[in-house]
């Protein structure tokens, strides 16, 4: 419990004074935990699912986006609903615990009332509670587990490997795991995981040379006498969105046909329930579910969408596939109960449970493990770099406040005209008045290719880069999307037409208050180049210097490009 009861009541009073409607009766009565986490088992086959925890072992703040636009056929559909549109779609009451967990609404006040989210010690308690009434339930880890924190970077993900084994993960599929290199992945899979019975599955990773499977495509398990199959789907664009040289011998891709082949194979071997553990991203999962027959559910990740209830999708043969996405940063645990009768799924129940650390006791063993992991690094992690007076976050289609800080640090530190910062969806949030510690800074940038760069680009090249990234986000066909957000810009103003095609989305570009000249060269700072052999100061040194120098971060100006043609789109609330 990070807040005393007195502090907690003070926050509630402040929240009430600010007009926020809290589910105060249950909160004040202290009966939220028992009531909230009460989910009696139903059916006979159960899966527990978490994804994209980004190596956050401790509880954190995480602000959900207020811009998550859907274009083309995704317009107005899950997961492209934000704020009150999301609440309305699912019939969630404003001011409730679920509203606090699933939307950005009243983020500062609401999250103080419900506490930090996630944390493996609290997640462990919830997993065990769900397992207690679901014998044989499998715990699935959707990947992006090894990357995202200082300790995972410094231990080459050993901290997360150990924590996941302790948590009781049964099956995993990867994405950012690959940025520790193919050899490191193999080392973990063949040693730590093999010894502890953790399966690592990916039907869509094959060798370049012969197209052989690199990992098991799927595993079959027995649950209450029923055969189930879990097929792995790694992030299809790992060698494109992340450095190719880190997994030089492997090919990824979506591979619908091979997915269908493995579904059929598993069914032929007797699987009565077939699920996919996917890191495709929600839009890709929705499309895949419409093209492949015989999948009962896709437990998805990558796009960090916390999806309250599954989306049922009709397959080519008319069968239904339930598509879920379980958020990020350890904030949620998905619980799916299937009722299987006469070899068929005849019913289901699903909840995506928020992991509120204030309402779930820490599991002592996991807490001890985390303490041990952190001990050698505590001094460095807790260094206060600056005090923060704003809400700092990243998630959203365009710049977040954290990105503004990073881009400004790059521009000042590298002497650039403007800066790019990658539009990744990970990175925790910081509340007003909280210090920016070294640990919180690293949450934004803990990667294995952190070098900063200063390039001389023409205006035309800058536009091309922005068009390229924008197409990865807004291509009308999900199979051409890569699941990140728009590249973050510092010192560049522009307009964007998400509904247009590549080459036609970005306009009205300005740098230093002047229209961008396509032929003029500009000094552009950036980091996280996917090219091999790039040299440069790591991003954390650049940003740490900037923060130590500024001492206080306040009045961060959030830049939002002019968004054209999205009037009425429920994926945006400004």
């Amino acid at each position: 419990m990070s807040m005393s009861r007195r502090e907690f009541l003070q926050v509630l009073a402040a929240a009430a004074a600010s007009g926020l409607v809290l589910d105060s009766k249950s909160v004040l009565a202290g009966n939220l935990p028992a009531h909230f986490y009460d989910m009696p088992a139903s059916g006979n086959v159960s899966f527990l699912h978490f994804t994209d925890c980004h190596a956050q072992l401790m509880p954190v703040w995480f602000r959900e986006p207020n811009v998550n636009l859907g274009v083309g056929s995704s317009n107005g559909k899950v997961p492209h609903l934000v704020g009150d549109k999301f609440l309305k779609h699912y019939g969630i009451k404003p001011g409730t615990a679920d509203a606090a967990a699933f939307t950005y609404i009243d983020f500062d006040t609401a999250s103080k009332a419900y506490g930090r989210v996630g944390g493996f010690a609290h997640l462990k308690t919830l997993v065990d509670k769900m397992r207690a009434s679901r014998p044989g339930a499998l715990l699935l880890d959707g990947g992006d587990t090894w990357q995202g924190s200082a300790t995972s970077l410094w231990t080459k993900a050993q901290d997360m490997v150990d924590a996941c084994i302790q948590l009781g993960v049964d099956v995993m599929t990867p994405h950012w795991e690959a940025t520790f290199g193919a050899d490191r992945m193999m080392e973990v899979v063949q040693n730590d995981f093999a010894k502890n019975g953790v399966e690592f599955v990916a039907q869509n990773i094959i060798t370049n040379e012969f197209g052989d499977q690199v990992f098991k495509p799927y595993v079959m398990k027995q649950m209450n006498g029923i055969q189930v199959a879990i097929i792995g789907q790694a992030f299809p664009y790992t060698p494109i969105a992340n450095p190719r040289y880190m997994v030089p011998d492997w090919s990824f891709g979506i591979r619908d046909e091979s997915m269908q082949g493995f579904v059929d194979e598993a069914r032929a071997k007797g699987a009565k329930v077939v699920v996919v553990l996917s890191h495709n991203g929600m839009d890709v999962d929705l499309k895949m579910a419409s093209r492949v027959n015989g999948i009962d559910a896709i437990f998805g990740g990558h796009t960090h969408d916390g999806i309250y209830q599954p989306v049922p999708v009709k397959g080519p043969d008319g069968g239904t596939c339930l598509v879920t996405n379980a958020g990020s940063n350890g904030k949620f645990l998905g619980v799916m109960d299937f009722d299987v009768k006469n070899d068929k799924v005849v019913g289901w129940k699903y909840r995506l449970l928020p992991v509120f650390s204030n309402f779930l006791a820490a599991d002592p063993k996991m807490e001890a493990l985390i303490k041990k992991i952190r001990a050698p690094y505590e001094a460095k992690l807790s260094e206060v770099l600056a005090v923060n007076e704003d809400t700092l976050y990243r998630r959203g289609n365009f710049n977040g406040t954290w990105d503004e800080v990073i881009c400004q640090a790059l521009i000042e530190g590298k002497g650039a005209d403007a800066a790019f910062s990658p539009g990744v969806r990970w990175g925790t949030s910081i509340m007003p008045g909280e210090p920016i510690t070294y640990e919180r800074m690293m949450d934004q940038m803990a990667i294995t290719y952190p070098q900063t760069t200063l390039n001389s680009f023409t205006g035309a090249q800058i536009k091309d880069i922005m068009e390229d990234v924008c197409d990865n986000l807004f291509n009308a066909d999900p199979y051409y999307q890569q699941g990140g957000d728009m590249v973050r810009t510092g010192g560049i103003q522009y307009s964007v037409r998400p509904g247009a095609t590549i080459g036609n989305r970005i306009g009205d570009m300005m740098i230093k208050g002047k229209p961008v000249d396509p032929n003029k060269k500009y000094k552009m700072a950036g980091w996280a180049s996917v090219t091999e052999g790039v040299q440069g100061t790591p991003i954390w040194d650049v940003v740490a210097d900037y923060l130590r120098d500024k001492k206080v971060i306040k009045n961060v100006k959030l830049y939002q490009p002019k968004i054209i043609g999205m009037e009425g789109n429920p994926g945006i609330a400004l």
Partner: protein
Amino acid sequence: MNILRRNVLKGAGAAGAVSVAMAAGLLKPGMAFAADWNKAVFESKDLGSVMGAVGGAGAAAGDISVKAPDIAENGAVVPVEITSNIAGTESIIIIGEKNTQPMLAEFNLSNGAQGFISTRIKMGATSNVRALVKAGGKMYTAAKEVKVTIGGCGG
């Protein structure tokens, strides 16, 4: 995958698949590099002249599948598989529509060989990979878009 076959092929990897096929007696040199190499077509700089020269301008859609990645992992080696189920397939041509030299390869098949080729092509920009199939004196076509992107910035 047969380990022996793998090692044999690995050993021959540097020499390329075509020479392996030759070594295995599947193709004779004269067949691989046919005498009627069409310099003009291969050196055409635009799609229109290639299509005109190979007689594919009025090609009809046929039972052809072009298998290639949605997004190329490496533009320098994009895997492409073309299957023609059209009876009497005589030749398969691969075209990279936006390549500086769009005509990439022509495979001539004979004696009822299966209409299947698998190779790697080079692409500099997002474009269609087009297959042209000649069968029974007629031309058929199919295409698949392959996106070539600068990469980075994934979630």
